[in-house]
């Protein structure tokens, strides 16, 4: 499969409700290779362009503030929280990712970023 199947995919939480869309994927180098560590899920499409791929963006300050505001509702989904994922049915459509827990149980992205820093 491809990364394009994950990026922008619809995310359904454990209860089957729409939690948002996948807006970024975190990859980590390990001894076995480059592994998908987890997903960033954002409820509103609006957050995407402004949040600049969800790295902590600082400068310029005004745009940094906009980026933070845009990613305020973004949540971190570690790979073990993913129950299943399906590629799009037709080329150009969206994939689907199902989680094993409720959205409320997901860690906000900002907290996860603090841990990684």
């Amino acid at each position: 499969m491809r990364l394009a199947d994950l990026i922008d995919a619809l995310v359904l939480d454990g209860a089957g409700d729409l939690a948002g869309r996948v807006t970024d994927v975190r990859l980590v180098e390990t001894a076995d290779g480059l592994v998908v560590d987890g997903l960033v899920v954002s409820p509103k499409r609006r957050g995407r362009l402004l949040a600049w791929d969800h790295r902590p963006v600082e400068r310029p300050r005004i745009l940094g503030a906009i980026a933070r505001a845009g990613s305020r509702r973004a949540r971190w989904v570690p790979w073990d929280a993913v129950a299943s994922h399906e590629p799009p049915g037709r080329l150009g459509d969206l994939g689907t990712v199902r989680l094993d827990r409720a959205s409320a149980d997901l860690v906000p992205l900002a907290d996860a970023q603090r841990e990684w820093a």
Partner: protein
Amino acid sequence: MTVHGPDPDERAPGRAYSARFHWLDRQVVADDGTPISKVDDLELDGRDGRLYATAVLVGPDALAPRLRGRLGRLVAAVARRLAAAEGGRPPRIDLADVAAVGAAVTLRPSTGDLRVHALEDWTRANVIERIPGARHASG
């Protein structure tokens, strides 16, 4: 053209990336800085319940799904026609050949013929080399 800048980061265990920032849509360059292609997509392989990125996917075939919707389907149709013309597997660059990820994605020096340049080869043979002076570097 040479890649230069704050020491292109070597790939090393423990390093973390944002797929959208560090990988997707980045320029792939050879170790001497020559542009090869863009990272149009990444190939993922499932292994022991985890997903591993195994290759960089290149070309209109790889780009089409990322364009989404009707535009993506249109580009995929074009890509199929181009691929039918020369046949073969869709171009991929094995991730083992990627040495560093910095301002550009740099490949290892030993990376041989990558077979990602079908359109370039066709254009060179059928158009550009027929014009006098094609081999002359203007500098």
